[in-house]
């Protein structure tokens, strides 16, 4: 069985003019469909770099990244955008919802870029919000929602395109412990339903939720 994610000796170097910073070096990582992988490491360990590459927001400086059988390291900006749109749902630490925009429109937005009709967008966004228990919050704007609710709206947005994997970057970082647990429970539910989850965190308690843990230190994946 081929892995959903296959990183082969992937590295990322940032050129800051006078110095070269090796943020990620020789990373080998395979993630199978349906896994719940927690990537853990202290700040500065290369978590964000790895997450940007896994999320197709950035390209590796060297190495190969095959996502669902497609080598994405040599795709152009538009193709990468399509891969993100089709394959990946993002959940960010700071939710990254559009302000002054209703929960429904926030959740429906990814479908806009897939060319889905307005009616269909609303139907699917409603279903996604309903699934996360936010059926009564659809017309609320982010500023009218609690942190936990905002993060659940963000998860609904990540889910609405039915992506192969959810990429969650410190999803509980801005939440109190109750809301954090809540969000992790949602991720578990999604994983039980067969969705691949990649969780990035510096918190070992959160990382313990994963079925597998990947440790990052100084830009290298620890064995």
């Amino acid at each position, binding site marked *: 069985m081929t892995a959903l994610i296959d990183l082969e000796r992937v590295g990322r170097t940032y050129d800051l003019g006078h110095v070269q910073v090796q943020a990620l070096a020789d990373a080998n990582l395979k993630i199978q469909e349906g896994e719940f992988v927690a990537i853990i490491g202290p700040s500065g360990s290369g978590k964000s770099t790895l997450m*940007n590459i896994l*999320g197709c*927001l*950035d390209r590796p400086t060297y190495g190969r990244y095959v996502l669902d059988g497609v080598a994405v390291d040599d795709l152009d*900006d*538009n193709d990468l*955008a*399509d891969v*993100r*749109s*089709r394959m990946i749902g*993002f959940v*960010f630490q700071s939710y*990254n*919802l*559009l302000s*002054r925009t209703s929960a429904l429109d926030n959740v429906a*937005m*990814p479908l*806009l*870029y*897939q*060319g889905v*009709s*307005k009616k269909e967008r609303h139907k699917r966004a409603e279903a996604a919000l309903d699934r996360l228990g936010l059926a009564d919050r659809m017309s609320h704007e982010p500023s009218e929602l609690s942190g936990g609710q905002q993060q659940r709206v963000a998860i609904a*947005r990540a889910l609405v*395109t039915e992506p192969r994997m959810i990429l969650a970057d410190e999803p509980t970082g801005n939440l109190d412990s109750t809301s954090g647990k809540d969000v992790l429970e949602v991720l578990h539910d999604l994983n039980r339903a067969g969705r691949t989850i990649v969780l990035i965190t510096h918190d070992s308690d959160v990382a313990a939720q994963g079925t597998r843990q990947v440790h990052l230190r100084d830009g290298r994946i620890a064995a």
Partner: protein
Amino acid sequence: MRILELIGLAVSRLGTSRLRSMLTMLGIIIGVASVVALVSVGQGASSGITNQINSLGTNLLTVNAGASFTGFTRGAAGSATTLTTADATAISQIADVAALAPETSTSQFVVNGDKNTTTTILGTTQDYTTVRAYQVWQGRFLTDPSEEQALRVAVVGSTTADDLGLTASSIGSQITIGGVPFTVIGILQTKGGTSVSNADDQIMVPLSSVRRYFTGTSDTVRSIGVSVATADEMSNVKSEITTLLEQRHNVSAGASDDFTVTDQTQLLSTATSVYGLLTVLLAGVASISLVVGGIGIMNIMLVSVRERTREIGIRKAIGAHNRDILVQFLIEALVLSLLGGLIGIVVGLIASAVIAAVAGWGFTFNPLTLVVATVFSLIVGVIFGVWPARQAARLDPIAALRFE
């Protein structure tokens, strides 16, 4: 469909910051409004001139007697006594002269009952109405001079008729001109026009009568109005008249003529083209404010791109292509400029209607102006919207997401 949705998105987005959007549009509104108003006013003014040209008489040439010299002192134009009725007869023989009316004038005190006025008494012939484009309102105009030899009959201009209290029923009544009783045989229609001398304030009597009762028996005339058959023959006829009169008056080659032939339509068409040039100049100046308005749009769009960097990052992360972002911001700029343009057109039309009403000429409404104004504001939107939109589209999603 996507485009319609993006337009809807842009409108609602601009609606969330109404004051800012209004102020941004103001530059375009002022620019478009002033261009529309100036073009419309310019057209109104030049169509006013066209009306005036037509009211002077079609294809009109005027032969004026030159100035007389007393020693070295040049007198007023028309004071020379060299232009005669015989000259008029000779000119009437030229081919392409359609009609001709010799004119001689004097100023007299006119009385009708208890009303009086002092006005111009013009001696002329039956073709005067044709040459000078008058219409008879009541009664009739003068007829063949041979039948009206020194008859005391008068045709009154509309203003003079008002001054003297003459109405439709006054045909056949008597007025005294310079103490001499005349019978009113006709009243002319108002000609209007905005020339310095009022073309409706005069009394026309047979040429022979003016000579008999007021100016003496000399054969001279002040001027001869010549109507040319077609507009194309104007300059030909003008030079033929000049040659003819030079021969008749024995003007030696190189000496100055004792008469002038003026082509008034030509003068007025010059005035029209001056008006046209003025309109273009003013509209050019006004269009500078259109450019300034465009820069205002660009400025606000750049601010907007910066403020919404995070939004751009989010949109890109969840699958927006660069082109989607470009189109989104470009449409916002276009909505600003187009909406500003449309408001500007309305403001400009209202302004030009007010100006036309005050100036007293017809309000001309040219659909082409509207099309041009709309297209121009669109072009401004594209020119000044593309760069900020490209800035937005080129943002790196990672950096944009991290932007605070």
